[in-house]
């Protein structure tokens, strides 16, 4: 009897439609996020993350509709991120049926948003998403992390989808996010995101050891073994992936069966 490791498919949404995943021919409507989420649910997904990348504030209503429909059909935990800047934004998403909200750039710009959200809605509702990039130019005060090739670097927090360096040390930021009331850390490394070479293990392990809240590893999954590495070497509590599921390379169930065979506790 142990807490199982979680597998979390992530759906990127734009104007209420799934951005990736058009190759899913078996779906009646490949672009409908609720239908895709339902499919992951049936495969045994432990949670689903919706990431809203809609640019304009005017179109934000579409995400509310998606969350409501998903909550009405799925009966499993839903996290929603993207464009959440205020307590009112959080409230709107949570009332629509989400269990957690994920904040990223807005938390870096205004760290008190974490504390206020945690006080108002409970720490379990607040996921702080941290995007990081390696910086090989060491600076005083930054936490040194050893890379597998022997080099040393520090990890810098980046915002606006990884485009803007902030000068903030990722380990320090993770610690602050926890102190301020984050219930979970969603860590994405820009080094590995989209590469399909596996998670960025050094920073995943470092943050997971640093904080006392669960850590979700994200960015870089290409093979079944990468999930195993995320849990064992990265010490993650959950692994998030998008494209390997959208393009149907593996089902969530295949990933879990693989992990179970290698001794990782999963819900099957």
């Amino acid at each position: 009897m142990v807490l199982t490791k979680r597998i979390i498919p992530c759906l990127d949404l734009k104007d209420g439609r799934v951005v990736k995943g058009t190759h899913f021919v078996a779906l009646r409507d490949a672009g409908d996020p609720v239908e895709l989420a339902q499919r992951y649910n049936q495969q045994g997904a432990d949670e689903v993350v919706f990431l809203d990348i809609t640019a304009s504030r005017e179109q934000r209503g579409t995400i509310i509709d998606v969350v409501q429909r998903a909550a009405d059909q799925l009966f499993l935990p839903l996290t929603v991120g993207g464009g959440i800047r205020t307590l009112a934004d959080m409230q709107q998403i949570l009332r629509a049926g989400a269990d957690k909200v994920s904040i990223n750039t807005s938390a870096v710009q205004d760290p008190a948003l974490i504390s206020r959200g945690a006080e108002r809605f409970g720490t379990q509702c607040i996921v702080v998403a941290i995007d990081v990039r390696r910086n090989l130019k060491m600076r005083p005060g930054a936490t040194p992390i050893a890379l597998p090739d022997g080099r040393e670097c520090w990890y810098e927090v980046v915002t606006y989808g990884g485009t803007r360096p902030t000068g903030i040390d990722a380990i320090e930021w993770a610690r602050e996010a926890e102190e301020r009331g984050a219930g979970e850390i969603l860590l994405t490394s820009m080094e590995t995101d989209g590469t399909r070479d596996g998670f960025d293990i050094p920073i995943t392990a470092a943050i997971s050891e640093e904080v006392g809240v669960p850590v979700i590893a994200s960015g870089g999954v290409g093979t079944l073994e990468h999930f195993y590495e995320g849990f064992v070497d990265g010490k993650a509590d959950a692994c998030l992936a998008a494209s390997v599921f959208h393009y149907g390379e593996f089902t969530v169930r295949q990933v879990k069966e693989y992990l179970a065979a290698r001794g990782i506790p999963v819900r099957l």
Partner: protein
Amino acid sequence: MKQVAVVDYGLGNLRSVIRGLERAGAVATVTSDAETIASADGIVLPGVGAFREGMEMLGDLAETVVAAGRTVPLLGICLGMQMLMDTSEEHGVHQGLGLVPGDVKRFPQTAGEKIPHMGWNTIRIEQQDPLFEGLCREEYVYFVHSYYTSAAPEYTVATTTYIRPFASSVRNGTACGVQFHPEKSGAVGLRILENFIEML
């Protein structure tokens, strides 16, 4: 159709609970009206967040919930279950509703085990209960909590182990509770909500 009052005291996402109860065949009403609660066939006390705030926001409704919970089936979910107990030590010691004997305590901090206890873990059904009718002795359900409930074996319906064994479901007469979220626990959770409606 059975009328279920879902007690609204200003906390949390109630949408999934409502849909789950509706799917189980009940008419579910979100309410903070004492009369509606007192006249319902069954009561659900949901909740996420902190114990003291939960009790404070429940306020005068506490009396109504206690009286109703002694006569019709009452299901506490997550914080709602913890509020059924005698006391909680979350941010100081606070009185609960006292419908089920037992206490709520903080998980001890241990190396390598994260708090909150968040994710899918096993419940082990310790005594037959209509709430778990048709389920296996062990099932996976979804948990999110940082405090655990300790109750005597006669009030403990199911147990779960995380850091230490704790009561993941309790019952005293018509009042019962689950620490996990049935409305987020897929088919197993929906079955539990159906079983609750069957009890009305």
